[in-house]
């Protein structure tokens, strides 16, 4: 049965019960089988290596289990059928796309809208687990001494919180909104590589579970940075961190290629670069960061895993390696990574602001160059993490300059927002409140970064709670607030139900106040000399720590309000949303709710930019479904 060109492909699974088709449960079974095989093979290999057999920790076997488990999982999900059949010259099975009901969310579906929602719920789970870890951290810090938890356990909680937030939650905007909205916003019916799109999602929960499995191997002590030689001493839980981060990095590269190709090649006719929604621009800029940054991380993690399993010494100074090598590789990825967290947030809030200001995005080109400028500069700043590390100290002025320069393109984003608000007709909806809070938080987060870019200041603040407060203001105050802005804004389109506005506002105000109340004192704690990642601290710091802990519990409580809103609105109230409840010009709002399977009956023709509010002459954003072209479609 060879494939002829143009021959329609069809699903060979259609007649089977959904339980027997490839789905997440068969994936779990496959993962378990693969894991056992991998552990067995790794054990066979490992017992012939004397450095492994000397201890009861066999890293070769752990890595083997994870690697084969991943293959088994993907096989169980049906991911391997297509490439294998193509390799054997067989007719490929149809990708599951048109399926309705709950099963489409439990399979490797290739509809970008299904994948967007899978991302939303999948990442949401990890966001809450990682948030729970934060609650445990703050519980431990309620008193200076003795620690509540065993020190090793505490470090693992810190590591799980940080790693889970950076690995899984980093794509909390890019995953759900990037995948759901980019094709809709550019007038496409799908992403460029739908199977790769499904793969990137399904790697995410797998890497999350692998990361959590660290605790059954004794946890890992390194936090999210994974610095050797500490990482080389660590229990086998470190292997879980390495492998999970490796999978995330692979997913990042694949996501980046997919998004870039989609945005560059699949825009509808008339969607010029000048009309591209700012959110799509932010996805493009983020893709550049992921494509160039993540491979460097993969290289660093590979070396680290070889140091742990194969007795190499990339990072062992006594044997000719250097711990600096990992620090450089890690932060060459790590600093762009923090902009992978920040740029999608910029995109979301700049997308939402014009809608509720009822004005065009002010300085569109400035905003776009801001996003691209941040992306470019972020590759030139990584050594500001290493100002006191002992790397060539004469390089520091250069990194000081580049780091401070990055505030210029970031300022463009603020300028665009401030200009958009000028003489606007502002409506304080829940998405707008979250967007505005984003600017307040990011202002504090961004400006506190200036202290850390200046070498003399950084000497006093490096490695302290000041740094911690700074990046929580940019990531939690930026990314997470932008995520909630986007969620309240787009969820009515994504699942066709309205979220309760009063609960939404309650959620916003509790979250905004408790967030600031949690993290502002941490700046002071850092200035008073409290280092990061400690489980005991000086007694005179207790009041501020208790204040931060109680506020953090309130912050956790605000998340429960959000959950209550979600359950109430989606399970009980179930008020259907209008197809364009915010009167937005965005192309994604011009399609019906729920969005049809192929998005558009006919590829739309884009007639104008998405932000032409207040211009009576402006044509509608696009011609959908074969209507006549309006006479005003000038440019």
């Amino acid at each position, binding site marked *: 049965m060879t494939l002829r060109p143009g021959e329609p492909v069809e699903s060979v699974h259609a007649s089977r019960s959904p339980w027997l088709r490839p789905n997440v449960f068969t994936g779990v079974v496959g993962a378990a089988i693969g894991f056992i095989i991998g552990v067995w093979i790794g054990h066979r290999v490992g017992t012939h290596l*004397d450095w492994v057999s000397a201890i009861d920790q066999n890293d070769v076997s752990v890595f083997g289990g994870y690697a084969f488990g991943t293959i088994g999982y993907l096989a169980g999900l049906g991911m391997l059928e297509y490439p294998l059949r193509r390799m054997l010259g067989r007719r490929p099975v149809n990708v599951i796309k048109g399926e309705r009901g709950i099963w489409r969310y439990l399979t490797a579906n290739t509809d970008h809208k299904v994948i967007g929602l899978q991302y939303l719920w999948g990442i949401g789970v990890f966001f809450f687990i990682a948030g729970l870890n934060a609650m445990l951290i703050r519980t431990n810090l309620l008193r200076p001494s003795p620690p509540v938890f065993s020190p090793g356990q505490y470090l693992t909680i810190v590591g799980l919180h940080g790693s889970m937030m950076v690995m899984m939650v980093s794509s909390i905007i890019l995953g759900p909104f990037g995948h759901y909205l980019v094709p809709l916003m550019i007038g496409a019916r799908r992403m460029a590589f739908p199977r790769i799109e499904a793969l990137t999602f399904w790697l995410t929960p797998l890497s999350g579970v692998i990361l959590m499995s660290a605790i059954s191997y004794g946890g890992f002590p390194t936090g999210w940075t994974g610095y050797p030689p500490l990482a080389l001493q660590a229990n086998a839980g470190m292997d879980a961190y390495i492998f999970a981060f490796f999978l995330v990095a692979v997913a990042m590269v694949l996501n980046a290629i997919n998004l870039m190709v989609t945005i560059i090649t699949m825009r509808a006719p008339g969607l010029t670069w000048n009309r591209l929604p700012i959110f799509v621009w932010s996805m493009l800029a983020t893709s550049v960061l992921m494509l160039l940054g993540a491979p460097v991380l993969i290289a660093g993690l590979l070396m680290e895993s070889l140091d742990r399993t194969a007795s190499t010494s990339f990072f062992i100074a006594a044997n000719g390696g250097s711990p600096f090598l990992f620090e450089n590789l890690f932060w060459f990825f790590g600093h762009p990574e923090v902009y992978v967290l920040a740029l999608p947030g910029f995109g979301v809030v700049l997308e939402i602001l014009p809608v509720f200001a009822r004005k065009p995005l002010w300085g569109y080109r400035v905003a776009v160059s801001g996003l691209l400028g941040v992306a470019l500069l972020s590759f030139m700043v990584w050594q500001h993490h290493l100002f*006191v590390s002992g790397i060539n100290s004469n390089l520091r*002025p250069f990194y000081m300059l580049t780091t401070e320069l990055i505030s210029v393109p970031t300022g463009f984003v603020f300028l665009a927002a401030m200009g958009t608000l000028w003489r606007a*007709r502002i409506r304080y909806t829940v998405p707008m409140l979250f967007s505005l809070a984003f600017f307040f938080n990011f202002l504090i987060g961004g400006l506190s970064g200036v202290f850390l870019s*200046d070498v003399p200041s950084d*000497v006093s603040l490096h490695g302290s709670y000041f740094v911690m407060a700074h990046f929580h203001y940019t990531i939690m105050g930026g990314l997470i607030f932008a995520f909630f802005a986007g969620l309240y804004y787009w969820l009515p389109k994504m699942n066709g139900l309205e979220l309760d506005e009063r609960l939404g506002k309650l959620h916003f105000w509790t979250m905004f106040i408790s967030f600031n109340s949690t993290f502002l004192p941490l700046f002071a704690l850092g200035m008073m000399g409290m280092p990061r990642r400690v489980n005991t601290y000086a007694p005179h710091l207790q009041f501020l720590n208790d204040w931060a802990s109680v506020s953090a519990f309130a912050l956790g409580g605000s998340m429960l309000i959000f959950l209550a809103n979600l359950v109430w609105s989606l399970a009980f109230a179930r008020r259907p949303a209008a197809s364009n409840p915010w009167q937005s010009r965005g192309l994604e709002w011009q399609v019906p709710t729920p969005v049809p399977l192929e998005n558009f009956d006919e590829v739309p023709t884009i007639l104008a930019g998405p932000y032409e*509010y207040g211009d009576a002459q402006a044509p509608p954003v696009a011609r959908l479904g074969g209507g006549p072209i309006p006479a005003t479609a000038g440019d």
Partner: protein
Amino acid sequence: MSLPSSTGGNSDLPLRRVAVIWLVLSVIGVLAVLFGLEPHMPPGADTAQAHEQRIANTAIAAILMPITIGVLVYFVFALTTFRQRGDVVVDGPPIHGDSRLQATWVLGTVAIVLVLAAYGTYALFTTESNAAGSGGGQGPTLISSAPAGSLQVQVVSQQWEFTYRYPQYGGVETTELALPAGRTVVFHVTSLDVIHSFWAYQLGVKVDAVPGTDNVADVTPKKVESFTVRCAELCGVWHGAMSGTGQVMSASDFAAWIAQQQTAAAPVIKALPPYHTIYYPDPVGRAG
């Protein structure tokens, strides 16, 4: 701050009042930073290096204050003035931008950034006591040479305690850190195992301890005091407990203290390896 509107002038808006509010708040803010916050800015003024860090922290806070207040005042003004009440959706004027304002913003932010970077670079390479480097780790060699007669102190970092070696005093190694006041100290920070970071808060010294690396920083303690020493880089399970206090004492007290240490440690000095800037203890191969 004047932005154009589609309707011509902005005489309908209280822009002058907003500008005055910004100016007043900025002046108050800057004065509060310079005179209210400055004495509390980390890490103090007990050494030239610490003082310089305090100046940098204060200067940056003072420079950022008008910017922060300006953005916040603008947001408060815009969010209250341009609010649309009721459920009716009305479009605003279709303003797409203003190239003059954009250019001004770009040039302004670039200028501020260049000033900050130039100031930081200047502060890094020159300090009041000619001890460049601001107390941070400077790699194997100091940016500027330390004065003759400096005290060399090696910080030997290990899991999970800092110990200190005084090569000019027979290579004696101690578990406590004592420094004489008024004499430049050159810290040579190295590690025997994983990455640590030697942070002497009141001295304004923070130096990463990297195995196989001699990371140097200099400082001149002026005041007789005890200071906090903490590890500032995650180094394993007891990182949170890796802290202690050091003591700056008078020169005569220091001479007595070091002599006492040499006597007390006499049995163990013979066992110590010869002084070296870095040590490569056997990493204990994987076979144990």
